[in-house]
């Protein structure tokens, strides 16, 4: 297990390309997957965005920045990442609180922090800072964690998630929360405890329901049954299902999706781009994309298995699985399996900040993989 062969074969027969990749700490299969999927995403966006070249340019620039961030983070040794984890977490937490306080004055822009030149959402930092912090907390402790340690971990995950949910940004809160929980699960939380927590959550739900106001209950019901509110949130789902369903096996062809092109489908270039893809490229296109995503997740987990210490192992595992949570939540909501929460389709949806965070995460995976041999374990 200590030294595993690369998936590309023997190390002594490195070609020039592979040498460059190794020098830049890049993992070629992962990078290839990312490039393919985001390329495919651009193709879909061209149609979904209404052949808007300005929009394409902006997305291209964003992709460029995102890949730049990936490349930069790949150069940072995991030890340094580990050292900075608590600081990043503390800084992110402070920013979240700042946003909440400043947000009280300037209503409507609560998620954003304006730093003059750059505007960004501190919650994006937390998408990485939370799993980094959880992994840092566990890295020199024997696993599985003891009860008291679990309580600390719970607080480390729940506090930022609650702050983000307060903004209110339920989708991001969910992703941040699950990225932290995944670290704990990978860290060996005992099965009995998992079962216990699941049971507790199930038992708590009716109690919570009992204490909710009528209008809150109705909101929850609409969340799970959008068809009951066709003038509001349900409109998205009805149109999205028609778009996907009418795509059939092979789709209507690129740029020919009537649902998308005639603007029946809301948010077609952002959260609901998966439906455009389904309408124009059919089941084949969707399955191909899903396979691409699964490849990225699989490769990420492979890197986690190869990792040589607890910190990198847990972090890499959590990042890979959180990526899948993204995919599942978005595709689930667009196809009407899950309630509608604002989560974009990773690497494909139009939009900036989350793309950069995503690539930063893959940058960490690259770093974990690329610095492995130097540790000389």
């Amino acid at each position, binding site marked *: 297990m200590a030294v595993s062969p690369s998936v590309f074969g023997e190390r002594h027969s490195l070609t020039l390309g592979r040498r460059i990749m190794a020098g830049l700490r890049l993992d070629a299969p992962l990078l290839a997957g990312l490039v393919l999927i985001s390329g495919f995403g651009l193709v879909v966006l061209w149609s979904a965005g209404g052949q808007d070249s300005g929009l394409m340019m902006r997305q291209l620039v964003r992709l460029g920045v995102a890949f730049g961030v990936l490349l930069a983070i790949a150069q940072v040794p995991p030890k340094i990442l580990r050292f900075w984890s608590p600081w990043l977490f503390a800084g992110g937490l402070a920013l979240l609180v700042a946003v909440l306080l400043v947000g009280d004055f300037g209503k409507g822009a609560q998620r954003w922090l304006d730093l003059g030149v750059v505007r960004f959402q501190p919650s994006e930092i937390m998408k990485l800072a939370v799993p980094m912090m959880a992994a840092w907390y566990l890295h020199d402790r024997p696993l599985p964690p003891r009860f008291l340690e679990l309580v600390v971990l719970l607080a480390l995950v729940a506090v930022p998630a609650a702050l983000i949910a307060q903004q209110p940004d339920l989708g991001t809160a969910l992703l941040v929360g699950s990225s932290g929980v995944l670290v704990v699960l990978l860290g060996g939380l005992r099965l009995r405890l998992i079962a216990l927590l699941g049971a507790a959550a199930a038992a708590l739900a009716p109690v919570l329901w009992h204490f909710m106001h009528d209008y809150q209950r109705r909101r929850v019901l609409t969340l799970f049954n959008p068809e009951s*509110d*066709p*003038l509001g949130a349900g409109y998205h789902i009805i149109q999205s299902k028609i778009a996907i369903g009418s795509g059939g096996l092979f789709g209507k062809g690129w740029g020919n999706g009537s649902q998308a092109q005639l603007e*029946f489908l809301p948010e077609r270039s952002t959260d609901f781009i998966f439906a455009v893809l*389904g309408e124009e490229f059919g089941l084949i296109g969707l399955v191909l994309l899903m396979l691409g995503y699964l490849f990225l997740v699989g490769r990420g987990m492979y890197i986690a298995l190869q990792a040589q210490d607890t910190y990198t192992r847990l972090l890499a595992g959590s990042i890979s699985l959180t990526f899948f949570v993204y995919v599942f939540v978005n595709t689930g909501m667009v196809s009407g*399996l899950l309630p509608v929460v604002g989560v974009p389709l990773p690497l494909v949806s139009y939009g900036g900040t989350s793309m950069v965070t995503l690539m930063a995460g893959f940058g960490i995976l690259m770093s974990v993989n690329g610095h492995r041999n130097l540790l000389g374990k």
Partner: protein
Amino acid sequence: MRVDRLKDHWREQRMFLGRVIAAAVIVVLLAGLVVYRLVDLQVVNFEHFSRLSQGNRVRIEPIPPVRGLLFDRNGRVLAENHPVYQLELVPEQVRDLESTLAALLELELVQEEDLPRIRNQIRSQRRFDPTILRHRLSEEEAARFAVHRPRFTGVDIQARLARQYPLGESGSHVIGYVGAVSENDLKRLDAPNYAGTAQTGRIGAERAWEHLLHGTTGYRQILVNAQGRMLQELERIDAAPGRNVYLTIDLELQAVAEEALQGRRGAVVAMDPRNGEVLALVSVPSYDPNLFSLGISTRQYQALQTDIDQPLFNRALRGQYPPGSTIKPILALAGLHYGVITGRDTIFCPGWFSLPNHSHRYRDWKRTGHGTVNLEESVAQSCDVYYYRLAITLGIERMHDFLSKFGLGHVTGIDIPGEQPGLMPSRQWKRTAFSRPQDQAWFPGETVITGIGQGYMLTTPLQLAQAAAILGNRGQGFRPTLLAAVEDPMSGERENSGHQPLPPLQLAPQKVEEAVDSMIAVMHGPRGTARASARNAEWTIAGKTGTAQVVAIAQGQEYDESKVDERHRPHALFISFAPAENPRIAVGVLVENGASGSGAAAPIARLVMDNWLNREAD
């Protein structure tokens, strides 16, 4: 670190491998679930969704509910729904928007001033949602459009229900009116439920019971072809109509009061003292609410707003006037209650009053004075000097506390919006109301004039009626209400609204009777100020006149030579209830610049009380 808690890297790696494998299984299962769903949508149900999408399109249309009707207490209609024609445009179906609008403008079917609003709406809406070009077309305009219809694809006439008020100006200050739903309304209201609603209550009962009147919006999913014609209705949830609302207002009584005030500016409020039901609430002059529900032009609105008689101003709820002498019986009761006077005590009224060590003379309205008067005579003749002295004896704090209990100086809590609180001054109030320290002190002279309801004190006509009702019901007040009953239009089930008693005032019954007797003396006594208004009365009436000085004409008003004099006259006020022993009606009357409470206000109250009691007796 304890020995048994040392890290075992080998074990950890094995455990991690186990977790990763478990995670991989879950990932594959979840991905499989999504793919299964996609297969279900795209392969199994392909035909269904394809039909919905190809050529045909599904559209969701809201079905607006029918607004509930407004009735008076006897079921006479106050507000109903009437079909009107409305001109609509669906942006998606229009080939050239600008030339279409220009052509409609040429036919005078669209107004120039509406164009910015229309363009704005088209930009912000979904392209297949209709934009309203004109809210109401006349029959002739509808016909003109019908002739030219083939030229205008995407433009059509829709029949819809608009609010209509059959009584016109009568009762409009109670009924209120509806207006077009605006962006701001949607922030306040439940927006999805107003998806198809054109109008919402703006003021009065229409606003207060909007939640009852509106109903629940339904919707239908329809299949339309490429031209937007409906092919098939896929699903339909009917709208639930709004509830009918019965007001406590009696239309006939309302008309009597309006008639009596005709040509004047003023207000009448009549209540049932036994339960707080408002029987009539009149403010004159009035306006036609149909103007608002059918779309008022800017010019018409300007005219209403700048009218010197302020027809839009609800004097009954929002007009704040010095109560003048109408508060005297209540102050007399305060004197009895606090034990500073008895009914037999007399004072000598020389026609003026001075504070000790002050030379300033506070004059009585009767220059020559009333001579020796006791409590009953002081109310019956409205002797000012008696109340200058009583005020000084009581002090402003006790006056404030006691008058407040009768609903003066704070909102009564009537259930239609817009009520003003009036003002009951006190030391505390003066400290906070003025910014300059020299203005914050309370002066004895201010107590003196508060004794005759002048100075800072302000009341609304509604408060006057409420004070009369509380006294008439012997200290047991009710929150004024206009809601009599709510009816489900489908089942006809009618639910009567409850009454809200106020905390009873703890007053000695014989002291209350003394105050009531003094008010009876106003009407039936040999020297009562309003005895002319009680002539041939079938009931014992208790009343009190008031005449309040008008300080000055408000600034910024237009001067009209012939009107200036009239507007300098004092306001006339009157409060009363009858039958005095067991009142079934309490009335507050205000006539702006009516000059005299006994001359202008009391006769109106008499008409109102007679009408109500005569009919009630039948």
